[in-house]
């Protein structure tokens, strides 16, 4: 009999994205800041991604994820919609900037900033 162990779904950030988060934090004069990741209602498809450099620290209901020297704060309700997401960075002239590869997203709007589940 084979057994499988399922990894708990979490939110991850790519190394390239983490580098760019740190660069943005420095540019905003907050080199020690963290990244708030979340969703809010709205956008063409229903839910819109939120990314925010913050030096407020985590909230009581936040999950904290640390990777490549960057701490991500995700509130619990947003986490439901983001579990399994990989935050990546698409650079270059044709790049889109930060990209959410979200396995929960059934559809995304034309500009890619909102999604439905």
């Amino acid at each position, binding site marked *: 009999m084979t057994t499988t162990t399922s990894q708990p779904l979490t939110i991850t950030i790519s190394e390239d994205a983490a580098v760019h988060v740190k660069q943005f934090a420095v540019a905003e004069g907050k080199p020690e800041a963290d990244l708030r990741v979340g969703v*809010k*209602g709205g*956008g*063409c*498809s229903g839910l*819109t991604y939120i990314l925010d450099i913050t030096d407020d620290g985590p909230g009581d209901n936040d999950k904290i994820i640390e990777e490549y020297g960057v701490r991500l704060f995700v509130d619990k*309700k947003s986490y439901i919609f983001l579990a399994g997401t990989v935050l990546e960075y698409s650079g270059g002239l044709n790049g889109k900037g930060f990209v959410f590869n979200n396995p929960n997203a059934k559809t995304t709007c034309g500009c890619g900033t909102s999604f439905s589940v």
Partner: protein
Amino acid sequence: MNKFSGYVDLGTHKGRLSLIGSDALDLLDRLTTNRISDLTSMGMGMGAVLTTNKGRIIDLLGIHVEEKGLMVVTSGNATEKVSDWIDFYTIMEDVQIKNVSDQTFHFRVIGTSPEIEVLPDTTGMKPFHGVQTELAGVPSLAISLQVGNLSCIDLIGSVVSGDSVQSKLDEYLKEIRIDEYNHFRIDAGEPAYGSELTEEFNPLEAGLLPYISFNKGCYIGQEVVARLNTYDKVQRKLVKFKWDSVDYELSGKVIEDEDRVVGVMTSSLNGLGMGFVRKAKAEEGNVMICDGVKITVADILAD
């Protein structure tokens, strides 16, 4: 349209939600078709459509700024659905939603005139804007509305004092039964939840253009609604029909023209109806067949 005046008890025909919290206005702006963010001061109000991400109608809302927050008027049967929809999209926002339908009265005075001195003068007031007033000593929110070509006033207040308000209205006005009101609203081309306001149809088909802002930015369903408008992709239009016999109930029946299905009747009462037909057929005077009855397009409700 007939000369019509009186008042109707919309207590259960409409629903009322109270939204409080610093993000309530912003959240509703992100969820509905109209520029709700413009409602910056007490008394202001606006109609707006709640749409799915496919641009289909959930309900037509009246959104009003009160002292403590927002009063959202829904269709009676849609209240739970609207409340759940708003609640689902309340994630990090400071918004508390409460269904106050059972705690509030809601009367609509139809065909208002300045002679009815107990009512506030809403002359010149924009539709959906309101004013705090007292009727029979009862604090009420009076909202100015236009239904068809008639001016109306909606009165909303605490249900505890609803009987006093109704007694005062009875002194001046005749109470209109809901079935009479339904006939009036069909004649006025006012869409209703479950008939014209369903996820079968989009706001442009249903003549809800006045409740859509095309430059407000994103809201749920915006991409679809904007595309339909920009590329003139609306396939059906809501029209009003008339027919000779008052005996036929045609709601839900298909509409045919030259033996081809061209639409569906969505409301019908006493020889009057509303239905959606293919755009090419939506011309005043066009005659079609519905369940064997000859029906004539009397008005185009969606331009």
